[in-house]
């Protein structure tokens, strides 16, 4: 499981989380979990809105299904706190309660957290 917990352009971690997820598919089944500020990565971002010092890596989310990454979930509390509009999401995640999240983390073979 790869956990995304950083907002999109605050650091390189968000970009590297996606790299790790895609690389991980060569070894095992990969799932994604967006927590806290990380849920902001789910928002579609127009190309010209990307800061110049950052790569517009979020377009890579569109390739997830090509890599057979379909298990994508996010924290429902964070999702609702940011009032993310569903029509502006890059991908549709499954919304999880804190106990769902705890269950998933407990039952994951390995977790890479970014």
């Amino acid at each position, binding site marked *: 499981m790869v956990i995304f917990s950083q907002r999109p352009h605050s650091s*390189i971690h968000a970009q*590297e989380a996606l*790299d*790790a997820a895609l*690389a*991980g598919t*060569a*070894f*095992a089944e990969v799932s994604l979990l967006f927590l806290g500020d990380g849920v902001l990565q789910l928002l579609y971002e127009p190309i010209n809105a990307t800061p110049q010092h950052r790569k517009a890596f979020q377009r890579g989310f569109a390739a997830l299904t090509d890599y057979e990454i379909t298990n994508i979930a996010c924290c429902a509390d964070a999702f609702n706190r940011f009032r993310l509009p569903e029509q502006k999401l890059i991908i549709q995640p499954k919304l999880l309660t804190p106990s769902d999240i705890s269950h998933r983390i407990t039952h994951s*073979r*390995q977790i*890479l*957290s970014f």
Partner: protein
Amino acid sequence: MNFALSIQGSPYDSACHWSALRFAEAVLEAGHSIHRIFFYHDAVLIGSNLQAPPQDEVDLTRSWQALSSQHHLDLCLCIASCLRRGIINQTEATRFEKPAENLHIGFTITGLGQLIEAALVTDRLVTFRG
């Protein structure tokens, strides 16, 4: 138990390298094994052979190399992190037409797959952040 370590903090800005080094020593002393040590993000700066810390301070690069030589540890640096920070071996220096290489002996530049493989084949992946 078989361990893998992921080290992510800058060598001399944070305590994470020192903590990881002491952890690795303790793990080996207790009879466990370490499959791989993976340096990621700013931690790859440890692989430069151009560092010259003051003589009365710990030389972390040499400390890792000494531990690696003694226990045959696999010291891997993330290639994407390395290239962004100017840590390159001869192959990359040639590929990117750079005037020199600076990878310290004992370290290897590898892909992110080495971290994932290590996470899957070991009992514990322990991460040290800055």
